[in-house]
């Protein structure tokens, strides 16, 4: 069995969902996504047993492009994140009614397919194709099933699409240029290239444009908050939970090893970008009146810290970044789901209209509280492991970086708790708030369980990713 099985399952699932019709679509989609999760766990076991699960086939002769999928620890952990979050996201949408549900769920599975492909591809062009392909479903999901005023939504979504496409086209030029040098798009051939300082400079920034827009890193973040707000919650979860991790993953997999000299030269600037994102995101989040927008800016702050970690270029920082990617994926999906639960009952996202929910819905209140605490990196949660590792490695470079980056925890605690207070506490709200239903509980409990489990016991993930990150770091340090 090799990794293309997983891609086939997701792709077939997407078509099956479409043809299952509106009524069955959600269930078929859930079934296939669970099946994909099972497959990726099975793949993990096979990989751990030391067998080869990669896949290589020639596709186009000239220019030589191959269908090459390589699974190592880093790819697999991202794959697990994708396949674990997809069923959760699909299941979380069960309370909602969607028009044309078959297309909706088919697009979700198609997006999972494209994102898994991005994490697996080891041929530059194949990777680029998956990368772009994942953009189309989210565009339609946000455009058609989004909320709020149509005209505004249209503007936000088109801006998002053009921004990300623009960034990735520069990445394409970089790949084509690298192809001229190496005569191959395969990652191992590209790693062997010895590029001059000047070439690395250009290629680095071409990649950076693509990734900085996707992640997003300040100052390329302007599309983010609006799209998160306007997209349906499922779309927001896909975007913030998985899709932006594509950018971070690509930094580790493609950008840093290909352009190590440039990466080292710009290290302080890049960490500066990341930390600027942390501070800016936190401060803007303080002033948000819309729950989803607040979460969007908080996500910007956390992702800024991950980016800073990824660009720090020590083994600890890379490990911390990957851990925090996983942790952030889960916690952000949980938080957006909590916002969705409130929206289902109150039909508003304005924080001022909420309040006094705790007395009516104690179960929800406690689970939401745990998520909020996890997102501000309370010890024993997964996020603590990630953020602490990143901050520690930042402090090795320069104490100031760690101090400034640490504001994510302080400011985060402030705006998240303030939000919690305004949303959940206070006098009993006149509007009725029914406590969480069974399947809402299930989604939240799974997320919380994951966060605590890996918070207390992150070793399995560490063991999975460390050899792979070691190798990446060796590639970076090879060419001095």
């Amino acid at each position, binding site marked *: 069995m090799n990794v293309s099985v997983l891609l086939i399952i997701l792709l077939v699932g997407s078509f099956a969902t479409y043809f299952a019709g509106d009524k069955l679509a959600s269930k078929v989609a859930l079934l296939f996504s669970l099946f994909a999760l099972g497959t990726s766990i099975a793949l993990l076991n096979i990989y751990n047993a030391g067998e080869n699960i990669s896949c290589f086939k020639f*596709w*186009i*002769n*000239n*220019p030589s492009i191959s269908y090459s999928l390589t699974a190592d620890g880093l790819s697999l952990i991202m794959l697990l994140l994708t396949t674990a979050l997809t069923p959760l996201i699909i299941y979380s949408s069960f309370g909602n009614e969607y028009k044309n549900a078959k*297309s909706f769920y088919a697009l979700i599975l198609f997006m999972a397919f494209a994102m898994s492909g991005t994490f697996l591809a080891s041929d530059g*062009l194949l990777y*680029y*194709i998956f990368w*772009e*392909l994942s*953009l*189309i479903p989210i565009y*339609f999901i946000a*455009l*058609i099933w989004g909320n709020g005023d*149509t005209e505004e*939504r*249209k503007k936000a979504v*088109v801006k998002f*699409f*053009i921004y990300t*496409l*623009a960034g990735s*086209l*520069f990445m*394409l*030029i970089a790949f*084509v*240029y690298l*192809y*001229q040098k190496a005569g191959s798009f395969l990652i191992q051939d590209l790693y062997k290239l010895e590029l001059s300082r000047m070439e690395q400079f250009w290629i680095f920034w071409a990649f950076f444009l693509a990734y900085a827009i996707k992640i997003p890193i300040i100052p390329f973040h302007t599309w983010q908050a609006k799209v998160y707000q306007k997209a349906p919650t499922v779309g927001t979860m896909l975007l913030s939970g998985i899709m932006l991790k594509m950018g971070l993953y690509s930094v580790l997999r493609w950008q840093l090893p290909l352009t190590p000299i440039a990466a080292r030269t710009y290290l302080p600037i890049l960490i500066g970008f990341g930390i600027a994102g942390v501070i800016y995101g936190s401060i803007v989040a303080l002033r948000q009146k819309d729950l989803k927008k607040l979460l969007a800016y908080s996500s910007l702050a956390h992702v800024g810290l991950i980016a800073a970690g990824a660009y720090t270029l020590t083994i600890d920082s890379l490990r911390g970044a990957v851990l925090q990617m996983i942790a952030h994926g889960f916690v952000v999906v949980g938080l957006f789901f909590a916002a969705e639960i409130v929206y289902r009952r109150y039909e508003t996202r304005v924080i001022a209209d909420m309040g006094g929910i705790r007395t009516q819905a104690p179960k929800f209140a406690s689970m939401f509280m745990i998520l909020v605490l996890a997102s501000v990196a309370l010890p024993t949660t997964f996020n603590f492991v990630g953020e602490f590792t990143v901050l520690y490695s930042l402090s090795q470079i320069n104490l100031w970086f760690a101090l400034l980056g640490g504001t994510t925890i302080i400011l985060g605690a402030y705006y998240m708790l303030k939000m919690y207070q305004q949303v959940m506490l206070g006098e009993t709200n006149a509007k009725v708030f029914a406590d969480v239903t069974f399947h809402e509980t299930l989604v939240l409990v799974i997320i919380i369980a994951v966060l605590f489990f890996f918070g207390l016991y992150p070793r399995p993930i560490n063991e999975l990713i460390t050899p792979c990150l070691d190798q990446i770091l060796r590639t970076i340090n090879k060419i001095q």
Partner: protein
Amino acid sequence: MNTLIAIIGLGILCLILEIFDARKAIIPIVVIGLLAVLGLDITEFNSPNAYYNNMIIVGKFSSAFSALFIILTIFLVSLGHKFYENHQTKISDFVAIKIFLLAGAVAMVSFGNLAMFFLGIEVLSIALYVLASSNRLSIKSNEAGLKYFLMGSFASGIILFGICLIYGAMGSFDVTEISELSRSAELPIWFPIGIVLVFIGMLFKIAAVPFHFWAPDVYEGSPALTTALMSTLAKVVAIATLYKLVKTMNADISPSFQLIIVIISIASMTVGNIMALRQVNVKRMLAFSGISHAGFMLMTLLSTVKSSGTLLYYTSAYALAGIAAFSVILYVCKTKENEDITNFQGLGKNNPLMAAILTASLLSMAGIPIFSGFFAKLFLFNQTIQAGFIALVIVAVINSIISVGYYFKLILAMYTKEPNEAKIPTPAVIYAVAVISIVLNIALGLFPSFVLDLLG
């Protein structure tokens, strides 16, 4: 050569069928006939040959492109089935003109002599003038036909003048002879002037900036099916011919000539895209998009030694996406007076399949992966960077981003607006053409080697 004769025979057959009052059978017979011609053309692929003292040279290049032209004509003729419903009496004329146009197109890519080249151009252009004004009760169609005729005959005149100067300089119409003579050290001044004039005339035919002014008006005014023909078949024919001309006449292009191509290519892409952003009429928008695609296709002239496969791939991808898009436009605007974007509102709800096909074809033109338009651009960029024009590629990429803006305007209208009216029934032929052409487009994207390696 046999292909050309067979096509002309088919055209005459088409006219004869009218005498026997078999109008209903014309389109099926012609489609079957064209499929047979396609088979004939494919058999000629591996047997290069020259006919009539090098008047016509059939080789891989000409038969591959002829095959593409024939496939496009099959699509265009099939679409005509419903389009000329109200003009049943004239259907044989319309179909016959298209077949003669195809004959001109095939002559244009298989020329070995400048006389033949000019004959091909004229056959093609005259057929197009007639088709542009074929809706004779519509003032817009008349205007389009007249405008196209006036501008087109100027261009033909310029080409003819250029050919005369080349003859004056070289004493021959034969392309290979001219090419050999042009390698000698001393060239009369008439030769480069002649080349430039022919080049200008051809740029007019492919509607590259600054010779593009006729295109938007003619595209808008002509009947939609003619616009489909002009933006797919006619454009592809012209660029293929120009490519062959440049490749055979001056195999090693001088740097100054390359610079001119770079400038025209950048101007076409940029002007076409920026003007397209402001259009509300879909036909006009696609006219400007065609201008920008002409700019992309001109990039193949920078490395003529290896880029014929890339050109074939790009033109196939572009033309197939164009056919798919135009069949949806024909369906949507059949009962409408114009082709404004507002007519497309709510198509996503009314007819999801048609909306999906139009979306796919626009995504292909914009160059989004898995559709062949992406690979076309990729191969083109790869080739151009190899030839050392990285700045041109960066401009092209920026233009690709701009183009997303107007392609998505149409997609947005289809999916975010409410439909204006109830669903109109779709003829099966339009479905068939749209589905087949978009499937071919995606298949080209999945297996690009099939076309790309054809011309080695």
